[in-house]
């Protein structure tokens, strides 16, 4: 029972590509980032959504980080949008956005971030990020710095 990796949720990708035709728009700023402790065990094959097991218990909340998380539209420095983008380059698809930086936050033991589609009725899980350790800001700035390569990179021409 623990967080061990980052990943993209297979069930959501299947729903996007099969007859379900789930309308995930990765450029939306209404997607939210919710935080969870190390007591959950993400399963990137079977997990489906926020507020569905294992994301229905133990969510990390606190000052300026409410249940359900923070929307990308207000997650960057100064309460601005992280402006997510999905672009194609040299045979790869890159999902990127500005760093998350939320001021005056107080919460305890955040280990995992779940990005999910809050605008969809199903709150479908998009991706999860493993922090590798527990972090607890106190009336302080909480930042998630993404790599220069992007949040995720799909190589379609390996």
């Amino acid at each position, binding site marked *: 029972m623990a967080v061990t990796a980052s990943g*993209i949720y297979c069930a959501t990708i299947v729903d996007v590509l099969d007859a379900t035709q789930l309308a995930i728009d990765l450029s939306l700023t209404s997607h939210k980032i919710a935080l969870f402790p190390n007591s959950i065990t993400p399963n990137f094959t079977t997990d489906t959504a926020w507020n569905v097991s294992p994301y229905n218990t133990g969510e990390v909340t606190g000052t300026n980080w409410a249940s359900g998380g923070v929307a990308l539209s207000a997650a960057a420095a100064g309460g601005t949008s992280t402006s997510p983008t999905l672009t194609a380059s040299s045979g790869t698809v890159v999902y990127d956005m500005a760093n998350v930086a939320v001021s005056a936050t107080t919460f305890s033991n955040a280990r995992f971030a779940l990005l999910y589609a809050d605008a969809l009725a199903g709150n479908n899980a998009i991706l999860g990020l493993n922090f590798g*350790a527990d*972090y607890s*800001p*106190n*009336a*302080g*700035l909480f*930042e998630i710095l993404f790599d220069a390569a992007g*949040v995720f990179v799909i190589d379609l021409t390996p």
Partner: protein
Amino acid sequence: MPNGRPGPTPNVPDSLPSGYTSVAPVSGTPIDREKLLSIGHLRRGRTRAKVREGREHHETGKPFKATTDELGNTTTEHATKDDRVDIRVRVKPIHLNFCAAPVTIQTDSQ
């Protein structure tokens, strides 16, 4: 033998230098004695948290202590009334590859 008793290691006295106390019997294994007597024994790995201390302004700023752990994530503690703690988490990109099945081309040689 310097102290008149044979030790497990030649030319090494079978007693600790003055001022040192042993948690294990002096008659412990030779390896324990080597650890206790050695100067450069590494008790922990080389990868440790890096700590940087200073002031937000060199004269008037509040003191802070920034600790960057082995994951590259930084916790900054500020000496403020509310004991402010900032967190900076660096996440690695998720890399995905689509592995297409190998294509076999058959030709009719007739």
